[in-house]
């Protein structure tokens, strides 16, 4: 199946000469939830803004549903709903009129039933006659979501939708995202909460300094993260690994004081019992042990770190 969004070599250099996007290529499949992770200033919002025509790209191309966003902009944009990071909303208009306006702006006929459905799903129905300025920050953010959903987009961009949203509401929001996905809506979200990406996304992209460092199925990432390490601090330094232990995925620390064993927590057998028995048989005693699970955060930080290092090296070269 053709991707719903196809990004090719997208670059953006702002007027000041700052390059916020540096050759991003990415295909987004229809119906998936893609989470974009990256530190502040990584270029997440710039990427979304280039796709949604808020920022003119300096190079590269974007197609949405096969329509180029520059040459065939009407067809491309009519598929997209955008919830921006900044809460910008007409203060004096009522919630209901603001949301209806968005639908009209996209050229769709009025559909009170759909508007009601959206407002109810976002717990805004009771507030529909309030003016936007009378809403709390979290409610305003939900109005933005309602605006984006009012025109029934095929692709929904959520730029940090849960920033400043309380725990209960965050849950509601994720339920909504799931139900949208069930309807076949493609969702691209950015977040700083790694658990959120872990919980929601089908695929996770990591972006830093305008470069897409990785895009991976979450399950593949989780595999990497399912890895656990058992470190044994030995009673006496070990010069060499005994042959009896060669079958295990063991690494000996440089000073020989510790052994690290890598295993998969979700495997049928982790092999820990057998390892410990074999160690005892080989006469290796240990003082202490610790286990450590690698998280998405580790993967993320490692990537960002490596990315930063390779950029400085390029710069130096």
């Amino acid at each position, binding site marked *: 199946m053709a991707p719903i969004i196809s990004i090719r070599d997208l670059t953006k250099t702002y007027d000041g000469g700052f390059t916020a996007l540096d050759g991003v290529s990415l295909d987004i499949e229809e119906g998936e939830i893609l989470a974009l992770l990256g530190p502040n200033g990584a270029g997440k919002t710039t990427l979304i803004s280039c796709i949604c025509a*808020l920022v003119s790209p300096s190079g590269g191309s974007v197609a949405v549903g096969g329509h180029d966003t520059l040459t065939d902009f*009407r067809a491309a*944009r009519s598929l997209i709903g*955008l919830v*921006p990071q900044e809460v*910008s909303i007409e203060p004096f*208009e009522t919630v209901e009129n603001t949301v209806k306006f968005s639908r009209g702006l996209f050229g769709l006929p009025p559909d009170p039933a759909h508007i009601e459905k959206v407002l109810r799903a976002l717990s805004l129905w009771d507030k529909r006659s309030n003016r936007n300025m009378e809403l709390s920050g979290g409610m305003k953010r939900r109005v933005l979501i309602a605006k984006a959903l009012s025109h029934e987009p095929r692709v929904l961009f959520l730029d940090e939708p849960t920033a400043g949203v309380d725990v209960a509401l965050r849950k509601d929001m994720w339920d909504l995202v799931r139900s949208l996905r069930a309807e076949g809506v493609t969702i691209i979200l950015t977040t700083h909460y790694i658990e959120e990406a872990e919980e929601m996304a089908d695929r996770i992209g990591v972006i830093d300094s305008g470069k897409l460092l990785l895009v991976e199925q979450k399950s593949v990432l989780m595999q990497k993260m399912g890895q656990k390490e058992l470190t044994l601090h030995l009673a006496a330094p070990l010069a060499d690994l005994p042959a009896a232990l060669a079958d295990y995925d063991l690494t000996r620390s440089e000073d020989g004081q510790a052994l690290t064993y890598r295993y998969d927590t979700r495997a049928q057998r982790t092999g820990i019992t057998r390892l410990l028995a074999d160690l005892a048989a080989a006469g290796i005693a240990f003082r202490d042990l610790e286990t450590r699970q690698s998280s998405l955060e580790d993967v993320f930080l490692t990537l960002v770190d490596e990315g930063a290092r390779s950029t400085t090296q390029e710069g130096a070269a």
Partner: protein
Amino acid sequence: MNWRSISSIYRFEMARTFRTLTQSILSPVLSTVLYFVVFGSAIGGRIETVEGIPYGAFIVPGLVMLTVLQQAVSNASFGIYFPKFIGTIYELLSAPLSFVEIVIGYVGAAATKALMISLIILATSTLFVDLSIAHPFYMLGFLILTCISFALLGFIIGIWAGNFEQLQLIPLLVITPLVFLGGAFYSVDMLPPFWAAVSHFNPVLYLISGFRWAFFEASDVPVGASLAAIMVFLTLCLGIIWAIFRTGWRIKP
């Protein structure tokens, strides 16, 4: 052309007008009444007629033009500056709209509001003076063209402005003086020859003159020149707006 989108913008903007009905309609009407009192009664007592027209009636077209220019420019400039200022412009840019539709929606609403106010002022003026309109269709045509072209100018100003002061700058510094010097309250023939000649470089003179001609068949410049002037101005504004949207100037980084 996406008429549904245009009408959404138009109705949203008109709703803003009606939300603030008192200040958006009452205040221009009130200030016009003041002009009548000051110019019509006080000065009109000394100047009986201009070009054979009672002074009170003579100033009506100029007064209407003054309000139309101010209103069209300020409505349109505010209309587009506000979304830029509060950030809601993101929605206009990401919607499946071309710039033509955005302009028609905003400029249409601003021009409509200016037209409404000018008609109310015209009606109000009949309370003070006897007014006859020689060419009602020309009158309306001039009025509508002026509303549209100055709403276009306002739109440009709204996009250009980086803060609220700049938003006020051009109406205050350029438009109001041009109206006052464009024969709103006098005929340029009453000026010394040098200043009468200089006045002919004032584009607003052509508007007021043409508009006045529609009432009294008396004008400072030929009516054809007035029509030509407004068409040139309209085309100029359209060209600038077209260039703005092509380049994304002051809208897109």
